């Protein structure tokens, strides 16, 4: 057993940390939110460092990173609240690469020097329309389940209605029957591929939420050290310090679990799917609790738009909700742990 990162992984993480510290400061996050939650320049620049093809096999033109490497990088994107849909792009590219010839044309564009934005509709479409697709407002390419088919649509002028939302994210309803439409798989195979992609999204989004929670915790801790009331730093009050200790513990646990889930997927461990669902649920809960604690530490200032901590709190709640009610998510974990319910 070894919980350390390899030298290559350390370098990878450091490269993205430094890049995002410079290119995705809170001011950019705010500007991007005002413009719909996406920053094209950041997307292009990130692509130069390691774009959508990071997790695609070298044989298919990618960089061949495993889910663990992607998870480590996702933590950095989460910590910076970077307004670019990297997780959706990584997962979509892997779906296209796995689909072979059916996905090859789109894959080329997704792996191009200025990569096309591709995303994943997490829920099956109804009457051909997928509801509130992450990055749906900015991604020409959407992969999703339409009845019995796993399809990829390329709609260069989708003109989706970007929905003003809690997480400041570019979500939108998207038709899976518009634009150029490729069927990647059908029937059971389609559902299985979609499920696998959603579980990969869970692992990597867990990474994003772990990074987000860790960064929010730092904001809370720093503020608690500096802010004085009653003549002492407020961090010396147990009522406050203990709440931060609780969430710090949860953040460490969530990080270990997200990394274990990514590792298990790479290794083809039998419990990889269960771990993916566990990691996602725990990271979502932890991000919500941690950002709430960090905001509370800031007192009234934390509630004002001027302070950054509110950026974290809103995203911590909103981003995981893309997958729906977390209590239903627990039932989906139960399906893996205990098998489907009889008569369900």
């Amino acid at each position, binding site marked *: 057993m070894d919980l350390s990162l390899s030298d290559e992984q350390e370098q990878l993480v450091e490269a993205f940390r430094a890049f995002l510290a410079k290119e995705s400061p809170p001011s950019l996050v705010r500007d991007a939110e005002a413009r719909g939650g996406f920053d094209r320049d950041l997307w292009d620049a990130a692509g130069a460092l390691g774009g959508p093809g990071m997790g695609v096999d070298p044989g298919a033109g990618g960089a061949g990173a495993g889910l663990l490497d992607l998870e480590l990088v996702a933590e950095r994107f989460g910590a910076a609240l970077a307004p670019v849909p990297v997780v959706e792009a990584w997962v979509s590219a892997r779906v296209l690469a796995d689909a072979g010839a059916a996905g090859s044309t789109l894959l080329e564009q997704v792996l191009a020097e200025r990569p096309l934005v591709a995303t994943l509709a997490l829920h099956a479409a109804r009457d051909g329309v997928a509801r509130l697709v992450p990055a749906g407002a900015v991604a020409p390419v959407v992969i999703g389940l339409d009845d019995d088919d796993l399809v990829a649509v390329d709609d260069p002028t989708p003109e989706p209605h970007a929905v003003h939302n809690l997480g400041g994210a570019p979500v939108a309803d998207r038709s899976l029957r518009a634009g150029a439409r490729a069927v990647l798989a059908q029937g059971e195979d389609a559902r299985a591929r979609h499920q696998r992609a959603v579980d990969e999204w869970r692992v990597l989004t867990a990474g994003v939420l772990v990074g987000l929670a860790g960064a929010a915790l730092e904001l809370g*801790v720093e503020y608690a050290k500096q802010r004085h009331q009653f003549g002492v730093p407020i*961090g010396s009050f147990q009522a406050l310090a203990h709440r931060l200790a*609780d969430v710090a513990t949860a953040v460490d646990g969530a990080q270990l679990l997200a990394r274990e889930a990514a*590792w298990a997927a790479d290794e083809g461990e039998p419990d990889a799917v269960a771990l993916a669902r566990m990691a996602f649920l725990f990271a979502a809960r932890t991000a919500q609790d941690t950002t709430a604690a960090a905001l509370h530490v800031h007192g009234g200032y934390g509630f004002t738009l001027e302070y950054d901590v509110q950026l974290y709190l809103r995203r911590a709640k909103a981003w995981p909700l893309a997958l729906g009610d977390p209590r239903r998510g627990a039932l989906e974990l*139960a399906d893996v742990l*205990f098998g489907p319910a009889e008569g369900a």
Partner: protein
Amino acid sequence: MEFRLGAKSDSFREEVRTFLRDHVPADMVERAHDTGTNHDWRVHRALGEQGWIAASWPEEYGGQGRDPFEMTAMRDELRLAGVPTDGLGQSVIVARTIRAVGTEEQKQRFLPPFLKGEIIFALGYTEPDSGSDVAAAKTRAVRDGDGWVIEGQKMFTTLAHEAAYVFLLTRTNPDVPKHRGLTMFLVPLDAPGVEIHPVHTMGGERTNATFYSGVRVPDALRVGEVDGGWDVMTVALTFERGGFALSEADRVWQQTVDWAEGTRRPDGTRVIDDPLVRERLANMRINDEVARLLALRCSYVAATGAMPGVEGSMHKLFYAEAMTADAAELVDMLGVDGVVAHGELDAPVDGWVEHLYRHAAVTTIYGGTSEVQRDIIASRGLGLPRSRR
């Protein structure tokens, strides 16, 4: 990264599992439950014969040089077999402290019988008026010729009725700041003047109050310097928090899942098909996995040669708080039957959920309360200013 314990641990795990299959007495679990004494001499001596009382110690000290991951595997198997390990756990803390700070004579005298599983030690820190504020101990030790005379009272001296010695924190100098006037002794529990009174707990565990009245001990039983008891405590407490105490939660979780899969309700549906049951068991599995990973991280830190500090506190805090909350959920989940105790024929999950609920409350208290762990995490982990208490 690598989350598997590794081949060495796997083969040791297999060895331990086989051993326990042959050496766990049929009535072990029932006897611990009925007596509240979480120590079984039969298993403990067998572990001693096997050389597994302190298997992690170097061979020259009577161990087998097992690495932290092999020890993790061993603890897993002991827990899964339901072996009561309170005696083992607390004795290892004392023995490691003797090994670290004891005299050569003390090592020769105490460690061999400990390693053979012939004696266990009790912890004598807590007093009626001092628990978390452990350095406020009032039990006095006064010089008397070559030795010392001890007067006082200790609380929660668990297993004093089975142990050979109590690791006793005493006050030798009342005129200096509280941390500076403490001295540690190993006091024989059969010495004249020692009284042991049982204290029964809500969790079913039996512990003790111990009384010391004119108890004479030779200076040779002093551990560490005179008035240097706090330094010894610091060593012992680090060992305690780095001990990755065992959580019973995952064993009861598995028992509950097995029961829910095999039990049908009057309407013919399986318990496990109820969404309220599924949701709770799924959430509890997440907490168990997080607790397991936080414990594994302690093993990993130990394997790198460091002592887990904040990591140990995080593990202790998380497993105790999560187990307490989860036990409450499990009892609720069983509905009206949730209250039925072990021993009743129709008790769901054999009553182990009800038992876990009663037991869980103490886990947030012993070995450093959750508040003590949070103080450590906040000050040493997060660098917050030391808290105003």
